[in-house]
Structure formats: C-alpha cells, structure tokens
C-alpha cells in the first residue's frame, strides 16, 4: 500500500433521497473529523423529498482541500437507478462497496476496481429488529460499519459521530450503532480488502468546527442585532432563516415573560418579504431577508425602491443553478450581475462576496453596518455549496466591536441641526441624514417616496432635482468601494493571475498548488465585493494573463471588470467558466490555465516556422 493512499481519498455514497442516508453520511463525516482528519463534504441532492438519486462526497486530503474532487476513490453504491453510471466514475484502482443485489452490468462490470458486495437489504431484514420504515433507514447505517472496517475508522470516533447525530434521541443512537456493528461484522467476516485506501488518526482538525454557511450567516445576523426577519421558503436559503429563528428563539426570548426580542414573519411571497424588510428598516429596526434566484427576481421592484428612497436592507442570496426554477438543489454563481444592478432604471447595489464560512458570518454581520451607513439595500452573495454543505472552519469569533447605525438624527441631534433636509449631502459623501418614525420632534417627519423628490424629501418633478439625486446616489454607492472588504491577494510577481470570488476559492486553492507543481504557478486575487475595490485594477495591471474563474455561463464578474478596467487590461482577461450545477473542481481551472500559460511560454515565431 502506497502511503499516498492514507488520508487521501474521496468517498462517494450514491443513495436514494429520503432513505436516511444523510445520517449515515454525517456519521462518517463526523467520525473522520473526530479522528483529526480534515474532511470536506459535498451533498449533491435532488429537488424532491424521497426517491430520487442523491450523492454525498466525502473528501479527505492531507492538505485539507475543501473543494470537490472529480473522480471517486471509494463508491458506496446503493441506488439501482444510477449504479452503472456511478461505478463508471470510480477511478481505476478504486473500490466499490455496494448492495449485493445490484446487477453488475455496464461500468458496474469493470475489472479495474475492487468490488465489495454486501447484502444490505437482507441483513437489515434478517438482523435488525425494528419497524419496516425504520429498518429502511438503518439499512443505510450498515454501510457506515462496512466502510469503517474497510478503511479503518476508529470505532470510538464512529460512536461519537453517532452520538453527535442523534444527540436528543439516545434510543435511536443505540439502534444505529447496532446497525453499524452489523456492517463491521459483515465486512470482517466476508470481505477481503484489496484496495489501498485507509485512514489514520491525525491532528488536522484541532480548533476547528463543522458548520454550514447558512447557519454561519444566521449567526452573523444575530450578532449584528437584526430584529426583523421576513422570508419566504426557498431552497437553498430556507435553512438560513430557520437557523436564525432557532437561535433567536434560544437567545432572544425573555425566560420570564416569553417575550421575543425578534420578529420572524414567514411572508406570503418574496415581494412581501422585501417589503416588510424595507418597512422595518424605515421604522428603525435592522431587518433582513434571505432568498435564492426566483426570489431575487421578485424583489426587483422593491429593491429599486430601497435604492431610490434610501432605505437599508440586507438580502442574502444563497445562489442556486439556473434561470427560472432551474436546478433548485444545485449550486451556481449566476446572480452576481443581476443583483448588482437589480431593478429597472439606473441602480447599483453593494454586494458582498464571501467564500468561506467565516466570511459569510462576517459579511452578513457587516452587511447590516453597511446598509445602515449607506442607507441602501446590501446583498450578501452566498451559494448552495457554501450555504448547505458542512465546512471545517475555526469557531466564529464573537463580535467585539459595536455596530454602526449610520447617520441617524434623534430628537436631540435634530434640535441642534438648524436646517435639516432628508436628502441633503452635508458631508460630501453622498450620504444624507435620516430620522426615524417615532422621533419626538416636530421637524422629524417627512414623506419617504419612490417617486421624484428633492433634497427636502418634497415631491418634485424638477429635472435638476432628479439629476442631482441620481448623481448623488452614484457618488454614494461609489464610496462603498472603500467600505467593502478589499480583495484578498496572493502575489509573487508571476505573469499569470487567477481572479475568483465566492466558493470558487476552494477549487482555486487546489488548482494553484497543482499548477505550481506543474511549473505553471500563478498569482491569485479573490474579489470580495462590488463595486470593485481600487486594488482590483491595480493587481490586474501587474499581470499579463488574467484568468477570471466563475461558476456561471456568461462571465458575469468578467463583464463587471470590463466595465471598469481600461481596455488594455480588458484584453488580458480570459474567462474560465463552470456551470453545471455541481461545485467547481480544480481540474476545471487547471486545464485552461495550464493551456494558457503554456501557450504564453511557447515562442510564437518558432512554432510557426517549425
């Protein structure tokens, strides 16, 4: 057995959804984590509740890569509908644990992989004493045991994993452990290991936790003092809202009176959700919504109202694949351009682009400050990969700073201000001062409106007032460049630069390492917000070839770059795009970058003559 096969493998469980396999997969993930082995889990699930194919990839690399891997080392094949295809994806020399009853036809007849047939159904039927529907779930737990035995999962870690998973249900934990033992036992007795893969305890997860981005974002909102959540269920953002409600329920309820320092309204749709958010921020609360593509479309009109009437709002867009309903349970970075200029007319909204769990926590938290400071809707662009998968991450830091409520005049401040006008640019930053409803001062009141208005918030159709307001709004949003996080830059003077954002980051990390090993090292810049930070152009300026990697078809970030960069820099941009709904992997980047760098090194004249 080569050492390269210790703690370096990708396990894929191919099952049917609604069959309880999610628990099994989480037990494996957590057992590995408890053994100190870095894991990255990707759940590729269908848009229904029960009976369709689902895949769960657990990747282990000594370097801790968190992106998807294209090929599979060990397949756990449980789904008849996809078994042949799934087996085809296993790399030569890999292994397949599978339901013994599945027919070994097509790629499932390959001879270059190790086959471990296990009669899961029969074992469950004969050896597990439970009601039939429970038995169906437990059947999948057996494969945890088989895998554990084959790759050497520490039984204590598995046990901890089970207890994590069934924290509130000790009886269930016991049943599941029994099923796992059944698997271990079967493997021991009937299977002969012929594959090279195994795991060993190490020290790679100390100081880390496992957390999904949606929960992290919810905690960011909680920490920011968000008090109003208005939402409409939509995958993959629902779990963000549900996590926020859960934590508010835990931390914001007065134990004596039962009073809640938080309002969460399930709106009738996304139009109402964003409407409630704007109403709440207008009245002085911090408010947010979370949604995904179709919801963003429905929020278009009122986002424009927020922009023009200058109201804070935080919208987290957990992106999913496709125009229209598309692939609701698949990931994409397809809303970047749409969200940045959402609504009719001239509009522009600040956008935060987190790539990690920590960032989506921090960005969501800071989005409230930004929205209050700029008095405008702010978007946080997460995606399904970040939002719904478990990631290894350092614990989220407690927020030490206070919060920035921006330019709000209370009665006292208003009293000191002789000549207040709601939309006057006093400070030259385009940001005016506002008052909140309920402010006990006779000059506090004004009428907020989405129709034309002048500096004093009076109705106006004056061409000049209109143009001046629009100019000021441009200045205001332009100012956000310096308020948003600066790009993350790793430069070492190489001529090639990869530009990415969001979760594409993780594939870039692996790609960079491997490109370096292949003698085609590149620099890296990760954009963290829109409108673009001035550093973005500066860094691009220092590179000859700029690979803009993104998970959409139309090169949405590339288009935004082109709008701002001088032409000479535009010509350096090369789009690398991945858009099939599954998270991008390193290969998708390595291939085009390698080709691009090789072409650049090849002296053009010589090759033409030769």
């Amino acid at each position: 057995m080569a050492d390269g096969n210790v703690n370096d493998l990708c396990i894929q469980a191919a099952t049917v959804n609604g069959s309880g396999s999610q628990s099994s997969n989480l037990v494996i993930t957590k057992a590995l984590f408890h053994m100190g082995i870095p894991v990255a889990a990707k759940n590729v699930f269908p848009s229904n509740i029960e009976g369709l194919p689902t895949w769960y990839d657990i990747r282990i690399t000594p370097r801790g890569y968190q992106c998807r891997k294209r090929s599979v080392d060990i397949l756990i094949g449980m789904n008849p509908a996809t078994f042949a295809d799934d087996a085809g994806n296993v790399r030569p020399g890999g292994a397949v644990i599978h339901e013994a009853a599945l027919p070994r036809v097509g790629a499932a007849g390959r001879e270059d992989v190790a086959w471990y047939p296990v009669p899961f159904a029969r074992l469950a039927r004969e050896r597990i004493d439970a009601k039939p529907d429970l038995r169906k779930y437990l059947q999948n737990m057996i494969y945890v045991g088989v895998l554990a035995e084959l790759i050497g999962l520490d039984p204590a870690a598995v046990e901890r994993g089970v207890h994590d998973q069934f924290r509130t249900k000790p009886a269930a934990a016991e049943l599941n452990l029994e099923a796992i033992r059944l698997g271990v036992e079967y493997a021991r007795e009937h299977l002969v290991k012929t594959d090279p893969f195994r795991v060993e305890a190490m020290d790679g997860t100390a100081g880390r936790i496992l957390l999904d981005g949606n929960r992290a974002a919810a905690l960011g909102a909680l920490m920011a003092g968000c008090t109003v959540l208005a939402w409409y269920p939509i995958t993959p953002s629902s779990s963000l809202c549900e996590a926020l409600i859960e934590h508010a329920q835990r931390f914001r309820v007065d134990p004596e009176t039962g009073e809640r320092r938080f309002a969460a309204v399930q709106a009738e749709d996304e139009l109402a959700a964003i409407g409630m958010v704007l109403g709440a921020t207008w009245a002085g609360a911090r408010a947010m919504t979370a949604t995904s593509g179709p919801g963003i479309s429905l929020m278009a009109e009122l986002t424009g109202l927020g922009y023009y009437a200058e109201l804070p709002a935080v919208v987290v867009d957990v992106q999913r694949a496709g125009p229209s309903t598309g692939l609701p349970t698949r990931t994409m970075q397809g809303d970047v351009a749409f969200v940045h200029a959402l609504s009719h007319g001239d509009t522009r909204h600040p956008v935060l682009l987190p790539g990690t769990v920590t960032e989506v926590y921090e960005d969501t938290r800071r989005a409230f400050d930004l929205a209050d400071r700029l008095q405008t809707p702010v978007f946080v662009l997460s995606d399904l990969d970040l939002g719904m998968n478990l990631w290894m991450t350092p614990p989220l830091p407690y927020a030490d700073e206070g919060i920035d409520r921006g330019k709000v005049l209370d009665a006292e401040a208003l009293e000191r201000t002789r000549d207040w006008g709601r939309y006057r640019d006093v400070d030259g930053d385009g940001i005016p001062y506002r008052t909140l409803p309920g402010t006990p001062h006779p000059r506090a009141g004004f009428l907020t409106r989405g129709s034309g208005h002048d500096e004093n918030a009076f109705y106006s159709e004056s061409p000049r007032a209109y143009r001046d307001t629009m100019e000021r709004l441009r200045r205001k949003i332009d100012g956000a460049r310096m308020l948003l996080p600066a790009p993350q830059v790793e430069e070492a003077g190489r001529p090639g630069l990869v530009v990415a954002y969001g979760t594409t980051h993780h594939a870039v990390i692996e790609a960079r390492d491997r490109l370096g090993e292949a003698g085609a090292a590149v620099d890296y810049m990760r954009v963290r917000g829109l409108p673009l930070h001035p550093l973005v152009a500066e860094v691009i300026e220092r590179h000859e070839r700029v690979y803009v990697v993104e998970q959409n078809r139309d090169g949405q970030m590339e288009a935004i770059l082109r709008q701002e960069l001088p032409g000479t820099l535009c010509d350096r941009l090369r789009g690398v795009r991945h858009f099939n709904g599954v998270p991008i992997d390193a290969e998708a980047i390595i291939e085009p970058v390698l080709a691009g760098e090789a072409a650049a090194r090849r002296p053009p004249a010589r090759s033409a003559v030769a």
Partner: protein
Amino acid sequence: MTIAADKTNRIGLTRDDYRGAHTTLCAGCGHNSITNHIVKALHDSAVEPHLLAKMSGIGCSSKATAYFVDRAHGFNGAHGRMPSLATGAKLANRELVVVGVSGDGDTASIGLGQYCHMIRRNLDITYVVEDNGVYGLTKGQLSATADLGSTLRKGRANDYPQIDICAVAIDLGASFVARSFSGDGKQLVPLLRAALAHRGTALLDVVSPCVTFNDHAGSTKSYAYVKDHDAPVNTPDFIAFQPEITVDYDPGTVQDVALHDGSHILLRKLDGDHDVRDPVAALRALHEARRSGEILTGLLYADPEIDDLCTRERLPDRPLAHLGIDALRPSREQWAALMAALV
C-alpha cells in the same frame, strides 16, 4: 399657514397641526374629503403626530398621505405593496399608529395578495381604501371593485363582477370591517376614530367618487349613485376611553363594541337585526345588498378580541427598533457554548 381657529385637543394640538401639504388631486375628488375626515379623526383622537406612520401605495389615493399631518413620517411606497411595508414598520416599532391609505386598484388588483395576508395576520393598522372603481392616476381604467355592468366614462361596460373587499376581509377573519362614503363625515369620522382605537386590521372601504373618470351616469361609484343607494346598517358613535363617563342606551337599539384601549363604539342599529359580531350575518347582508344594488355602509363586522400581529409574535412593549445591541447579542459565554457544540 392659516391661523388655527380650532380648539386644541387633549394633547394641546389644533386641527391645523394635523394638516399636510396642499392637495394636488382634482377639485371635487372624493379623496380630498376623506383627507379632511382623517384630519378631523386624528385630531379628535389626539394621535401624537410623531407616532403616526402614514403608509400608502401608488395612485391618486395613495398620494393623499402627503396631504395630512405634515409632521408625521409617511411612506408612499410601491403599487400594491403597502401592506408589507406597514407590516415591517409595525414590527419594528409597535408604538407607531399606522394609518394606511390605498386605492381600489392598489388593494384589489395588484395588492390583493398582500391585502389578504395582512388581514390574516391582523396587522394593527387603520387601512383606508379610497374606492372609486377606477384607476384614477392612470386615467380611468376599470378596477376590480367596479360593479358588473357599470360603465366607464367612454361607455365601455364592465364584464366582470366586483371584488367585494369587505366580504373577502370578513371571510379571512378580519377583526374590523366597515364601509363608508367620502361624503359622509358624520359616519366616517367615528368609524375612523374607532379604527384608530381598534387593535388589529381595521378596514375602511370608503366609496370615493373620481370626478374626472367615474362620476357619470352608469357608474355605481358616482356621487349621485352613492347618495341614492346608500344603505347604512348602523350609525356609529365613538366614545373615547374616559373612565368616569358611563353611557346610557337601550341595548335593543344600540350595539356596544368595547375596544381594546377601553374605548367604545356605539352602533345605533338601523337595519333591525344587523349584529356586528356575526360574520355570517354580515356576509349575508353584503350578498343581499350586492344583489339589490345597494351600498351597505357602517360598521359591518368587528371582533376586538382577535390578537394582532405583534401580540401573536409576542413582541415586547419596547419597540424592537429601540433595543440596544447589548439586548440583542448572545453573551460571550452563550456564544462559546454554542461554538463548542458545533462539531
């Protein structure tokens, strides 16, 4: 500014303190009369201007928020979306006295979904629909509250039945439903005052003729038609909460609805057996009136017992908007425990 000849109210304000910008609606528009009635009701009920939140959508009617109580905050939002804006505002600051002004297009067409869900939540709002059966601001298209067969100025007859927003509201479990007429201040002002005192959604569907596009013969929302077909079910009298006063009345002819804040609305029954606590009776009356072409006015239904949105959401008395960040963040210890539990 005219000098207030008015007497001051309980909080020392004159009627003029409740006025707004000069109207830009057509002379004679019903909406202007309603504005005046709102001013009177707010003054009489001594609503604190700074606690008033004037909400509206888009339309001639929705512009009216600019024409009363200059001092208050207002939000002239987007077409049909006022209920959601008002919901957010009230959640953020439950001390606000929320008055919504909408049109029949705004409420019964584009906004119907939000309207229904606002009622379902029983948002605490005085929701006035200035109902003229047409789209005034876009120049006279039929709205969904126009009666079947009623005609537009240019003669086109309406092929579709009206949406009766009062009936729909009662069916959705509304807690306060009234209909009135812009020209009938005697009826409308007490209704408005009761609506302000009511804790929950108080719907006031106020027929408000559009003199420019829907005040001709053939319209069922014209001044003439309403005057001829007005069928009041009761005469409302509003008694603001004053502990020492007791009112004498004959329970056979007057129905007394006690509101949450201790106020009362006394309804002198006109239509012998109209019981405002009986939703089915109210629906029956509305269906019958529809058949006979009458416009039923007065308080049609009320149930002050139903919890409003903020009560249901168990919000503290202190507005959410006023809570400091320390009251909102978990403690360091709680946070550490939370993180420790995340494997």
